[in-house]
């Protein structure tokens, strides 16, 4: 346990779970009652099993999907990650047929660890509007003022 180990575990989550799609690693990193607080795209996910299903869904839609960690800031039981996600849309996603295009978005995610060194909570903030526009799920618009 400790700040450095927490940071390593967040790195493992992105490398092994998101990058390689190995959802079994989630059991090492997260407690089962893990809660995800998201935004408009995935507002709430309860439980690490639901996260496994979510990751599988995203990896089916974006088999090469992976995250680059741009920055990490950690203190106490919190690790904040600034990231860029990138993947090629080759499978159905949220009811939309594959476009074959590379989609990418930026995000800022905050992870909280429990006193056993496992991730118990996450606030995932992604700039989803460009992605939803790319999928044709919301109209093209000029983004600004926020």
């Amino acid at each position, binding site marked *: 346990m400790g700040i450095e180990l927490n940071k390593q575990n967040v790195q493992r989550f992105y490398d092994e779970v998101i990058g390689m799609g190995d959802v079994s690693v989630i059991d090492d990193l997260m407690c089962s009652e893990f809660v995800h607080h998201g935004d408009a795209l995935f507002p709430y996910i309860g439980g690490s099993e639901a996260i496994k299903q979510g990751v599988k869904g995203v990896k089916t839609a974006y088999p090469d999907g992976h995250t680059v960690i741009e*920055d990490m*800031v950690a203190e106490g039981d919190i690790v904040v990650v600034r990231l860029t996600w990138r993947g090629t849309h080759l499978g159905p996603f949220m009811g939309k047929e594959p476009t074959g295009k590379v989609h990418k978005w930026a*995000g*800022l995610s*905050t992870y909280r660890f429990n006193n056993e060194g496992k991730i118990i909570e996450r606030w995932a903030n992604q700039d989803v509007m460009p992605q939803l526009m790319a999928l044709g799920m919301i109209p093209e618009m000029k983004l600004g003022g926020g």
Partner: protein
Amino acid sequence: MSVDANKMLVSEFHQVVMVERRLDEVAQFMRDPLLDRDSKGVPEPLDRVKRSFAMYFSAFPDLQSKVEDITAEADKVVCRLTLTGTHQGEFMGAAPTGKSFSASAIHIFRIVDGKITERWEWVDRMGIRNQLGIQN
């Protein structure tokens, strides 16, 4: 500057600018220009930064900004917020709807010599638009 001093700077910035809306004091906390990573990383004159705050204050006159947590390491301070407000002025081109929202926001600030010099910002714009019922 120590990590604690950096956190204090960001707390004061939030109180003075976001809560008390003393926009004429932004320059005490931020370097001019600010390196704003969400404006393609180009240096942003503080006047434009202030106009962006003013836009939110005029779109949501009752805007409340609550600090959920502040996390700091080395020269970075992260401030995670919950914003609530009622849509009473133009927002992102949309006429006032009179509806209210609650949405998360998060900022990473880099602090050099006692001033915020660089910012990465994220606001749940999609959540705000959905709750206000703005379609496009």
